[in-house]
């Protein structure tokens, strides 16, 4: 096919955003100021005066991993309860205050944190700080609110899991089979029997255990001064009393000893798909950074090994996704066992063995020869660039900073991740692939379309 010649004359416009950073600049770190209040609340501020707005993230040190046994999905259900009002700010007030100030808000639950995020013009800073402090003091624990949100969450599960092709099997079922302990293996979206069993007493207990200032980090990024923010946070959050430190369950896993494989049928999907999950080294080890780089070498973009090999050269896949801690976070934001995941969608009638053989060739090549220096330099540049992307928008930078402080007590790592990536060698990658990307450390799910009505048996 030829590119129609007429289109060349239709070039309309190029929009360029060029920074004034010197061309030699290779590293960039966001400005960070950190303070801890007497009640234990950690406050992190990063000034960014590019627009008269700010992003705020309040992260609590509780996620799927620590939700009680028999209460799968509870951390997320609880997240919804944080939007149901308080004695001082009844239901609806929060949205009215934030949206009335020109902002918007949301919440996210992940394995190791639950975060509440807003972005707004700086004129709304005081009311938003007030409303976040208010829901850190107490909630409206009315049983009707729980009933209401239980239905909302169950509908969310129907829409995102039960009635959606693939049903997030690469995010829910894969860790379920790869891990052996409840914290890491259970269905984080929640079994209906557990969601139904949740009582308002559970909500109140969970709040008192985990939603204390000493188990939270507040991050603000935007057109503010750190001094001004610290003073305001002291004013609004200072009176929130500290509570007993939450219990920390043991979330470690015993080593895996053999490959785990299963086959699922999917009544909605039209194309077969493969999910592979490898156990990975512990967070904050050098090997964990190597795992992150290996994950990106295999999955990041069209230059990646799996895309080039499976989609382009062998044409055995339609799409390839994955990486360390994928899909519920980036390769650096987790605080317990996680997997290096591949999710591959294949053309109709693909056989599992043929696809897996092609996949294994790509893994074996990485373990045998590792990347050459040019390939390693390329992925390091891409990962640095991607990390900067994560820090560009104030609300995302606030989220990233708050998780770092939650996990490590300070935000230093946010600035030093590009340096950690730069320290990885080709030999590190080769050894990592040979040691960790092995069959005995992996779990595979092959998901095939169920025969449709009208198909011949």
């Amino acid at each position, binding site marked *: 096919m030829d590119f129609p010649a007429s289109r060349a004359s239709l070039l309309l416009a190029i*929009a360029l955003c*060029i920074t004034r950073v010197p061309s030699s600049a290779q590293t960039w770190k966001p400005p960070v100021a950190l303070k801890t209040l007497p009640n234990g609340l950690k406050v992190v501020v990063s000034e960014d005066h590019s627009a008269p707005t700010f992003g705020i993230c309040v992260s609590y040190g509780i996620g799927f991993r620590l939700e009680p046994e028999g209460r799968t999905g509870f951390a997320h259900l609880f997240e919804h309860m944080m939007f149901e009002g308080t004695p001082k700010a009844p239901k609806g007030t929060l949205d*009215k205050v934030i949206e009335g100030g020109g902002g918007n808000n949301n919440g996210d639950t992940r394995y190791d944190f639950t975060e509440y995020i807003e972005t707004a013009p700086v*004129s709304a800073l005081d009311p938003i700080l007030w*409303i976040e402090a208010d829901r850190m003091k107490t909630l409206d624990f009315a049983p009707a609110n729980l009933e209401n949100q239980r239905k909302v969450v169950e*509908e969310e599960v129907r829409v995102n899991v039960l009635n959606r092709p693939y049903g997030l099997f690469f995010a829910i079922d894969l860790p379920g089979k790869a891990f052996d302990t409840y914290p890491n293996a259970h269905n984080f979206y929640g079994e209906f029997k557990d969601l139904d069993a949740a009582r308002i007493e559970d909500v109140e207990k969970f709040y008192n255990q985990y939603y204390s200032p000493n188990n939270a980090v507040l991050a603000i990024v935007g057109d503010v001064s750190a001094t001004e923010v610290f003073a305001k946070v002291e004013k609004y959050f200072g009176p929130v009393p500290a509570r007993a430190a939450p219990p920390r369950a043991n979330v470690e896993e015993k080593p895996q000893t053999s490959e785990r494989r299963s086959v699922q049928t999917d009544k909605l999907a039209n194309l077969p798909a493969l999910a592979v999950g490898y156990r990975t080294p512990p967070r904050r080890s050098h090997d964990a950074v190597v795992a992150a780089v290996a994950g990106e070498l295999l999955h990041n973009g069209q230059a990646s090994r799996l895309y080039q090999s499976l989609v*382009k050269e062998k044409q055995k896949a339609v799409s390839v996704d994955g990486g360390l801690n994928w899909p519920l976070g980036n390769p650096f934001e987790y605080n317990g066992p996680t997997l290096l995941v591949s999710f591959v969608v294949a053309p109709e009638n693909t056989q599992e063995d043929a696809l897996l053989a092609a996949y294994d060739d790509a893994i074996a090549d990485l373990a045998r020869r590792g990347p050459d220096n040019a390939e390693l330099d390329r992925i390091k540049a891409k990962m640095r*660039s991607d990390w*900067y992307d994560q820090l560009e928008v104030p609300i995302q930078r606030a989220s990233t900073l708050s998780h770092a402080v939650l996990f490590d007590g300070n935000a230093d790592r946010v600035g030093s991740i590009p340096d950690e990536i730069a320290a990885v060698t080709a030999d590190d990658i080769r050894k990592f692939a040979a040691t960790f990307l092995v069959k005995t450390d992996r779990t595979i799910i092959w998901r095939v379309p169920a025969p449709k009505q009208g198909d011949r048996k």
Partner: protein
Amino acid sequence: MIRKYGTAAAALILSWAGLAADRQPLPKDLPPYGPIKQLAAPHVTIVKLDNGLTVWLVPEAGFPKVAVTLAVRGGYTADPKDRPGFADLIAATVTQGTRNRSAKQVAEDLEAVGGDLSGNSMPDSILIETSALSSKADTALQILADVMQQATFSDQEVAIAKSNLSSALQANEADPSFLGCRSHRQRALRRHVRVAAGQQYP
């Protein structure tokens, strides 16, 4: 993925709650909003090249990345009537190799500058977008210029793109939101339905 407003039902319930709240006064000790601070509009320098290409330059200090969007008039509403999906196929293949670089080299050269490149067909334009570390902006622009002037649309790359777009469409045929949007558009717009394009409607 786990969002408070995960479903239409959730949004609806919350909007009812909002209506109820409209009748309530705000909490008495809620501090007032501060004064509105004006946004300084970005300064745009417009340059026109001899060949007619218009270039907008928007400096953004303090962040070490550069983003480039090149818009070409004529998007998927300009698809020939008997060839729906044509603009999507152009967008999917224009980045897949030039007279100077194979598709793999395009991807690798961009990766080396921390960049990416994508083609997207819109209703009235095709957008080719790239971003890179600002210290490597020159290379990103060179690759973009190469792609826009020397794209080869090789038989092999077009065949792969056709096959993958078809498979993506097949996968989307199982997606309720895709089916709902398509059905709505077929009834609401009638004249030009983007059926074979294989993309989610925005």
